[in-house]
């Protein structure tokens, strides 16, 4: 089956000027500017199928937003090819954008000084939505996002969470086939985040809507995405399922002990164990490489030396996995041999 989003060897290069810091460098750059070539996106390729939710992770400046903007048709790629829904976003922009929606966490589509309902009416005219469709769609979205009571208040008086929900209505009124979300939960409280995640899941389920999500909030990815792409320094460093991402560092688990007696002076570090946290002599969190020792053997080995009253075994947090990827830690050999996973530094 043909993918909904097909990106081949995408590259974006900017030309900018080095301005320098401090008085001396600034004055020097005023008279003689040094040209700097920025490779924001380097030869990225991926394909996404219909109905898939794909999370795009990466540190600040990694090239995530640039990639999303090129996918939305807002930026021209320097080279490479993008096909979304059979369109080339930059070449067929007008026809293409009528089939997609986008929510940018830090850029608003609402008109600041008037109520969101007026902005919704503007989109109704722009996308040529019929009166009946607009009414039913708005009722559905307003109920799902619980915003019926705020739609007629000026946008400027709404809370960030309410505004973001209205941004989703703006993006969804015309029933897009693909939704691009660029940090949609940035700055939101837990309640608003949960509501927005539920909404995206529901739209994805009901409409088979394909979704690309860039975020720094790994919970967004854990809650929504089946697939994860990690971008760092403009390059794709990982592209696979969330489970595979969690396995990235091998079979490692976190084990937290609460001891009944002090463990002062005891050593826990060895070939398969690493101390993660030791807040007191009675508590410790260890990272255990379960490819070298089974969890039961490990617990037995600890129990032989120390008495404990509580134990908790957890998966390695995804945050830690991603940080390792960002830092460019080498992948284990079994991952490198997997053809679906691209790991490059």
């Amino acid at each position, binding site marked *: 089956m043909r993918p909904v989003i097909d990106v081949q060897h995408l590259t974006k290069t900017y030309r900018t000027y080095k301005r320098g810091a401090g008085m001396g460098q600034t004055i020097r750059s005023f008279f003689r500017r040094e040209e700097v070539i920025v490779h924001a996106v380097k030869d990225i390729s991926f394909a996404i199928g219909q109905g898939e939710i794909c999370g795009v992770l990466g540190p600040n400046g990694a090239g995530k*937003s640039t990639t999303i903007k090129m996918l939305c048709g807002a930026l021209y790629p320097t080279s490479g090819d993008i096909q979304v829904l059979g369109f080339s976003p930059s070449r067929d922009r007008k026809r293409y954008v009528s089939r997609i929606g986008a929510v940018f966490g830090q850029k608003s589509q609402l008109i600041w000084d*008037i109520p969101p309902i007026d902005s919704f009416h503007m989109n109704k005219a722009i996308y040529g939505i019929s009166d009946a469709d607009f009414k039913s769609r708005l009722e559905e979205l307003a109920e799902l996002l619980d915003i019926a009571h705020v739609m007629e208040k000026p946008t400027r008086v709404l809370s960030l969470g309410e505004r973001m929900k209205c941004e989703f209505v703006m993006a969804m009124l015309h029933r897009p086939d693909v939704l691009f979300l660029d940090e949609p939960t940035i700055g939101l409280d837990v309640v608003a985040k949960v509501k927005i995640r539920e909404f995206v899941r529901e739209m994805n389920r009901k409409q088979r809507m394909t979704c690309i999500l860039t975020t720094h909030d790994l919970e967004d990815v854990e809650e929504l995405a089946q697939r994860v792409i990690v971008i760092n320094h403009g390059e794709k460093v990982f592209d696979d399922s969330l489970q595979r991402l969690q396995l990235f560092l091998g079979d490692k688990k976190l084990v937290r002990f609460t001891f009944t007696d002090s463990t002062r002076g005891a050593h826990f570090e060895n070939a398969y164990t690493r101390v993660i946290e030791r807040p007191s002599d009675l508590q410790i969190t260890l990272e255990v490489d379960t490819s070298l020792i089974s969890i039961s053997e490990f617990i037995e080995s600890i129990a032989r030396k120390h008495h404990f009253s509580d134990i908790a075994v957890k998966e390695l947090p995804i945050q830690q996995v991603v940080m390792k990827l960002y830092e460019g830690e080498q992948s284990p050999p079994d991952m490198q041999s997997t053809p679906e996973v691209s790991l490059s530094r």
Partner: protein
Amino acid sequence: MKRYFKIYWTCMRSAFLAAIAYRMDFIVSSIITLVGNVLFPLVTLLIYRSGASFPGWTLYEVLLIQSVFTMSGGLANLIFGGVLWTTMSHIREGSFEVILLKPLNPLFFIVATTFSPDSIGVLVGGIALFLFSVAHVDAIPLLSWLPFAALFAAGTAVMAGITLMMAAMSFKWVGNSRISELADSVLHFGKYPLPIFPKSIQAVMTLVIPVGMVGFLPASALLGRVEATDFAAVLPCFLFMAAGAWIYRHMIRLYEGVGG
């Protein structure tokens, strides 16, 4: 076409609602714009009161030029006035993609959403001054109104072209908030009878940056002072506006956003 009219109407309505959301700001900015644009003919009045004059032109004939200039500026500002500042702010903040996400010509969308109702004051002030001047010049033949309308439309196209070119420059020349002063200084030439300037300036002001078309030629049409050759400048005016729109659309390709 019908769809575009509907979109324009809806966006214009939203722009109007946004403009009047803050009553005092709307009233004060309308008054400031009106005063700033309508009071400049006072200088002309002072010149003539002191016994000086523009050779070959009576006070009311000069006021007629200036009233046409004001009307043209008011109309162009009403429709295109917000394009410059909105484009500039989107580029500086890296939010131009919000415009590009709409399935429309981005220039049309910006023009529609930046309808500037606070310029209505200038247009109304210009019309008042125009009626006052018309009442004091020689009787205007009915047939003179047709060439006036054509030249007035051409003059408004020049004003629009200048705005679009300035807005287009902000794609490359990011954050230059004084760019409009450059245009204002060129436009000053259009507020006075063209024959008072040297021939070379007259040629530039008619054919290169046709600001002479904004006030001088339409007013001359009413006064029966135009010649058939003057109408040759009508086409460059519309080409000038088309060039502004073309440059703007071309410059969108340079848009690079800001770091996300």
